[in-house]
């Protein structure tokens, strides 16, 4: 095997490294968008909300770029085993990230819709949901970077907390609406926000599942 020992596939390595970096960069952009959207809602800052909506284009562009990289790698490098799994993971995960960004835009739109009208209540649980999700996404991306399946499983487990908060928000907003029908418009908006966040957490769980696949080669359902 001596004549083979020199082969290291530096082109493939370099392209996989770029792919990894771009995916992590996209993840960071999504985290920022989510953070800003919830912040805009909480502080009733339309400028901030608009910056989230405007920034979505960049995220979409990066998504397409990552997809193109994945397809080219599949076509030109014939990746196998761990490389194949990493590319499959990137290709699936990029869609989840893009959806998360879309939810950030939806939340920003709610912030604009509510505008400067007084909030029916101070926002507590929604920012708390956003905080948990931000931690999940941060650690999910770290699990991807460090090929840490354990961490990915642990991240997915945190989805339960988000689901719990979601039903709490739901029940609470319901009582507001029952008490005073004038709150229905805003409460419905806020309910949508909670729903968007709940969906974001599900996408983070999907991401975690693909990290587990990348590391172990097992397709698993972390959100049974």
């Amino acid at each position: 095997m001596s004549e083979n020992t020199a082969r290291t596939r530096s082109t493939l390595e370099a392209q996989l490294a770029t792919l990894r970096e771009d995916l992590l960069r996209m993840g960071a952009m999504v985290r920022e968008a989510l953070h800003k959207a919830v912040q805009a809602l909480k502080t009733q800052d339309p400028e901030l909300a608009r910056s989230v909506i405007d920034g979505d284009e960049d995220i979409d562009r990066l998504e397409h770029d990552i997809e193109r990289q994945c397809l080219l790698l599949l076509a030109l490098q014939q990746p196998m085993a761990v490389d194949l799994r990493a590319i499959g993971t990137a290709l699936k995960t990029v869609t989840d990230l893009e959806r998360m960004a879309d939810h950030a835009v939806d939340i920003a739109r709610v912030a604009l819709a509510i505008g400067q009208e007084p909030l029916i209540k101070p926002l507590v649980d929604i920012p708390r949901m956003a905080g948990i999700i931000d931690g999940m996404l941060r650690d999910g991306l770290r699990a991807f970077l460090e090929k840490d399946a354990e961490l990915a499983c642990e991240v997915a487990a945190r989805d339960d907390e988000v689901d719990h908060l979601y039903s709490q928000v739901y029940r609470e907003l319901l009582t507001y609406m029952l008490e005073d029908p004038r709150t229905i418009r805003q409460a419905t908006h806020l309910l949508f926000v909670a729903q968007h966040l709940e969906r974001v957490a599900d996408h983070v769980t999907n991401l975690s599942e693909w990290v587990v696949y990348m590391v172990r080669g097992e397709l698993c359902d972390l959100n049974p």
Partner: protein
Amino acid sequence: MTERHECGRPPSELAAAALPAAAERRREPSRAQLDGRTAPPRFSFRSSTGEASKPAPAEAKLRTEDLEVWYGPVRALKGITLEMAANRVTALIGPSGCGKSTFLRALDRMNEVIPGVRTTGRVLLDGQDIYAPGVDPVEVRRRVGMVFQRPNPFPFSVFDNVAYGPRRHGVTSRSELQAIVERSLKEAALWDEVKDRLRAPALELSGGQQQRLCIARALAVRPEVLLMDEPASALDPIATGRIEDLLTELARSYTIVIVTHNMQQAARVSDSTGFFLDGQLIEFGRTEEIFTRPRDPRTEAYITGRFG
């Protein structure tokens, strides 16, 4: 994604049971299937079980036990124990000099014609050791046919190339030979291209046609196993594609063992794959497992193209 199972836990029996059926759907219906014979499972990304590295359950047609081949003082094969399932394609991969071709030749006693070669261990064909005393190597080579890397037709006509083996084995009837030649050429997917020029010299055929002629020649003596040593490496992509299609077709009736340097080819055509390195069998398992999640880091390094 209905086959997903919980992280770290074995898949449901339902998912496992669904596998062969799902694999079968991917194949086009064949005569064999219409006859009620089961087709071998094909490459699929579906499974994610811990068991999956075992070959699909199928009867072992060929089995080696602690097979060793020595070229003089050099041990070229180190204790190979491997099962090759009936009606399946088994691919052997590995870098040059890893012993895969030596292994292939040991399966029909072809190493014996090389001076100074010594073989130990057993090679069981349908449970019977082909190296046992009293076994006729000529009969072994009839039951276990070989196709080589470069098409090597005899300088005869197309017809006489295919009829060569049967004649050597005593078939003299004109009509019987005619029938054998037609059947073999059809099985090798060459009949339509040569039926009007059976008397033409075989060397006038294209490289891809010559290789299929060699396959037809090997099939003419009705072997049970077909060994192929890089059968497509000297062919262009179209001829290669035809040979690969043919392999899938032939696996319905024959047990096929193929040595290839082309890993994509092994991934495309085989049911099971064995990775050889330095005279040892490093890893053997279902092709889909070997190429998506090999167990041994050396297999991983080889199939991802990162050796060393």
